[in-house]
């Protein structure tokens, strides 16, 4: 019930932030309405960072505590992060065409490292499908999740470290946090959008986590079911009832061991 309230709250805040960014705040003098994409673009990138950092931390959690609930959190973070990375790239491209004059430039460090980020975490999700042993899968995913996280600061600081087409952060660099290079109403619109998507992210994370836990239970049940049916079919075809033979082989003083020796002859 609390999660549902959070979900509706997030939806309402996203709607409010969208209205604010689209109709209340004026567009940038030079870029025009294309600038409004920035609110969603920056917010998507923030959620992508947040998700992948959570995935990395949950990976450490699994490696240290060996509790599969950490792995469920890691999965949720990676899936949501991939969606929002794709959204950030898509929004950026929609903005870049009217302002820069091109959708994409491969050699730009920010664009290229972000594309790499998307590829890394799609790889992470594919890797998770390679094993049906939940513990082995969790370990592999944790290691790859930690390695892939190295790209997060590279993406963020690429615009400061290297020369490229993408502009430096307006708010997100250490010297700009208190002196953003934008009017306060733009800052307010962005902060509201950041709050809105973070609430939505929290809701999505909880729901995806719950789903992942259910999937684990299903997987477990399926495995037990397979085990049971395999035992049953062996029991049906084998000349001797294996289950009974195993039972008989166990040290039980009242029973004879002759039936257990039979298949050996």
């Amino acid at each position: 019930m609390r999660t549902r309230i959070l979900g509706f709250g997030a939806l309402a805040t996203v709607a409010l932030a969208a209205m604010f960014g689209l109709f209340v705040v004026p567009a940038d003098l030079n870029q025009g309405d294309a600038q409004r994409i920035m609110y969603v673009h920056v917010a998507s990138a923030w959620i992508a960072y947040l998700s992948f950092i959570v995935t990395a931390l949950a990976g450490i959690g699994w490696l240290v505590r060996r509790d599969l609930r950490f792995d469920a959190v890691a999965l949720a973070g990676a899936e949501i992060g991939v969606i929002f990375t794709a959204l950030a790239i898509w929004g950026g491209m929609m903005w870049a065409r009217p302002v820069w004059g091109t959708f994409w430039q491969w050699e730009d460090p920010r664009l290229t490292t972000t594309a790499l980020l998307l590829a890394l975490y799609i790889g992470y999700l594919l890797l998770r499908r390679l094993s049906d042993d939940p513990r082995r899968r969790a370990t592999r995913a944790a290691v790859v999740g930690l390695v892939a996280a190295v790209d997060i600061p590279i993406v963020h600081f690429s615009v400061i470290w290297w020369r490229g087409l993408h502009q430096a952060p307006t708010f997100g660099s250490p010297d700009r946090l208190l002196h953003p290079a934008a009017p306060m109403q733009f800052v307010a619109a962005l902060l509201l959008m950041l709050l809105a998507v973070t609430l939505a992210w929290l809701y999505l994370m909880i729901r995806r986590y719950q789903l992942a836990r259910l999937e684990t239970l299903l997987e477990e049940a399926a495995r037990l079911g397979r085990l049971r049916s395999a035992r049953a079919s062996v029991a049906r075809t084998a000349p001797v009832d294996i289950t009974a033979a195993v039972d008989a082989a166990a040290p039980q003083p009242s029973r004879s061991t002759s039936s257990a020796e039979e298949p050996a002859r």
Partner: protein
Amino acid sequence: MLAVAAVVAVIAYFALSGVGNALVYYLTPSELLARGDRAFDETVRLGGLVKPGSVSGPATDLRFVLTDETHEIPVHSTVAPTSSFRAGVGAVVEGRLGRNGVFEATQVLVKHDENYVAPSPGAVPSHIVGS
């Protein structure tokens, strides 16, 4: 583990090649001119500020000067840039420097900076002021 090693290798390649300056998105006018004879007839990207007062001609036969405050290179382009192109803005052009010293651009990209301006009474978009 092999997959992990591959991922590490890719990231290391990106990080090192960037630090090693192999990952330079564009050259400044000073850097291009410093190449001497090798500067000519090679396709490169050139970036700088559009020198105020240097923009002339229609959008499909555009002439302007790119400067890094030290050196400047005249640019000629037959492809129209976006409407955000104006004097004083950062621009990245792709093409080659001719022997006559004029850079023939096949693409003009406008490099937007991180500053935003809200409209206020009397304020005019700077692309109207600039050119």
